[in-house]
């Protein structure tokens, strides 16, 4: 735990913001106030924040259909994101993209993605660009255990190795792709990291529910990649607290599984326990951070409800060619 008090506070605040954002969305979506497919990141906060806390704005990330956490961790505006999910024209993508397509290029956030496996090749390109610029920047692609079965991911890993692109493949293994178990769909049975290894990359493995494990691992990986050794891969073992998408009945889950992971594998609880036991932050500070995160989300929801709606004319803006 080589983190200052301020760094600890900032990291927890981000995790708490993602949690509050997602929990709130879960409640609101159930009322029907927001439309569209929404995939919540709740439970995996330690991965996004543990990875992104090391990154500068100039470092790039490419995200997935479960992208809210990555966006927030990379610094996307809470209200801008909420407005986007609400379909407002004031949203980060003017209401045209919605939950699955949030992007903020100025923040180095090159886009969530509705196509599973599409992100890895894009990240390799971004990493090539970083290499060309020669300033030690990196690109990160987040992929699930499902996405690691796409040819695009395989091709991207090989190309990154061949071109020595400073690309980091972050595999978030939450044990499910939609409603199918990791043990069934990933033929290597053992893990995803060994696959990446077979492509010639140095790989790491860590507990994705422990912010400090993620953060420490990423420090090592970044040292290695920024030093010009080419790409690297890491597999984080993590948990998804909600369904694949909002509305998923989740009857593929084991008896008591959700209660158990909330109880024993909650990265926010684990963080709190570690920092309070080590005397780094006290309970009251953590409570305040939770409250502040809730307040940010309150404000974002209120602003989204009041925000401008798009109109028919907006359909025709931002196209490459108009007919």
């Amino acid at each position, binding site marked *: 735990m080589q983190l200052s008090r301020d760094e600890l506070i900032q990291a927890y605040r981000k995790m708490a913001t993602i949690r509050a954002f997602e929990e709130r969305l879960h409640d609101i979506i159930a009322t029907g106030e927001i439309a*569209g497919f929404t995939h919540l990141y709740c439970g995996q906060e330690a991965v996004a924040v543990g990875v992104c806390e090391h990154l500068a704005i100039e470092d790039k990330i490419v995200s997935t259909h479960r992208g809210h956490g990555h966006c927030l961790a990379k610094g996307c505006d809470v209200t801008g994101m909420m407005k986007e999910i609400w379909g407002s024209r004031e949203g980060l*993508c003017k209401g045209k993209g919605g939950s699955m397509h949030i992007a903020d290029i100025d923040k180095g956030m090159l886009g969530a993605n509705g*196509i599973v496996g599409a992100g890895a090749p894009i990240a390799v390109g971004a990493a090539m660009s970083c290499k060309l610029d020669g300033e030690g920047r990196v690109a990160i692609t987040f992929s699930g255990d499902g996405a690691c079965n796409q040819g695009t991911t395989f091709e991207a890993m090989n190309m990154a190795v061949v071109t020595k692109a400073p690309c980091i493949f972050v595999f978030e293994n939450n044990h499910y792709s939609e409603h199918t178990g990791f043990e069934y769909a990933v033929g290597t049975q053992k893990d995803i990291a060994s696959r990446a290894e077979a492509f010639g990359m140095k790989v790491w493995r860590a507990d994705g529910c422990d912010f400090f494990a993620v953060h420490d691992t990423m420090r090592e990986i970044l040292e290695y990649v920024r030093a010009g050794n080419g790409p690297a891969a890491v597999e984080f073992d993590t948990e998804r607290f909600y369904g694949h998408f909002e509305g998923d009945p989740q*009857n593929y889950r084991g008896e008591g599984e959700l209660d158990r992971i909330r109880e024993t594998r909650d990265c926010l609880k684990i963080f709190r326990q570690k920092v309070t036991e080590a005397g780094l932050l006290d309970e009251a500070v953590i409570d305040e951070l939770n409250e502040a995160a809730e307040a940010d989300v309150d404000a974002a929801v209120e602003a989204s409800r009041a925000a401008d709606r798009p109109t028919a004319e907006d359909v025709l803006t931002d196209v490459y060619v108009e007919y």
Partner: protein
Amino acid sequence: MAKMMYRDAVRLTIAEEMERDESVVVLGEDVVGGMGTDGGPEAIGGIWSTSTGLFDKFGANRVIDTPISESAIVGAAAGLALSGKRPVAELMFADFIGVSLDQIWNQIGKFRYMFGGKTRCPAVIRMAYGGGYNAAAQHSQCAHQILTGMAGLKVVMPSTPEDVRGLLRTALRGDDPVMFLEHKALYAVEGEVPDGDWTIPFAHARQVTSGEDVTVLATGLMVGIAEAAAEAAAEDGIGVDLIDLRTTSPLDEEAILDSVEVTGRLVIVDEAPPRCSLATDLAALVANKAFSSLKAPIEMVTAPHTPVPFASELEQAYLPSPDDVEAAVRKTLAYR
């Protein structure tokens, strides 16, 4: 006659064909649902509930849950078909053809021709297409305009549970690759379906409403949109000859040309963007083969030339509406 939902018509027909013909096999992502989980197989039974129960009934050799690997799914369907099986592969969303395009475009679609007619490739690739769900640009697209443009593929777009039954039977019993496009906004639609083992041949359009003033062509979800417009126009005594094409490849040219010969006016309704599309293709067909029958320019009601937007207001503006179709009908009638 039985009343059933569009999605049930898909599932029932596949189940019956699997029973009838041992060579029919199903494959796709989450077609079983729950593989490798505590909930176990059939915990979900397909994202669209179009394959629920098939695994329990036919077992793991004939209902194959796959990883998220569309290239391998379509490629495996090709290999199964070339070696005597009748695969029904599910691509979940039509948008995902992008990932498997080589296997569709350069492989499955070309075997019969490239191999000098010496092979059959009876693969049915099912996918849900279309807008209306705020699913945004990567989960709402039409694929018929692309797939119809590929020589070698048959493209089917049922608009009712009855048509699902008749057309899917034909697809599963034929010897050629068929792209079977199910509109996601139709899955929960109910309709009467005749009993018995009947089929609907391809290139056999359905007349939805008859009239002598204007011909309207539509497919899939757009049939209902056009029907609403036809009903509104009928209140003013306008007779719409609404034709549901049902298959875009092969195409029932005769039905289209016969109708235009009577009405002399044509409105084409298409959910896809307008360039190089089904709409432009049909317009060219009629301009070329029924020019002398035309009394007015051909009208096309399509989505705009943009990706599908997310927000409800934008998506509503994007998709053709009954009002848009009615306006086009009136416009072509006003032309002198």
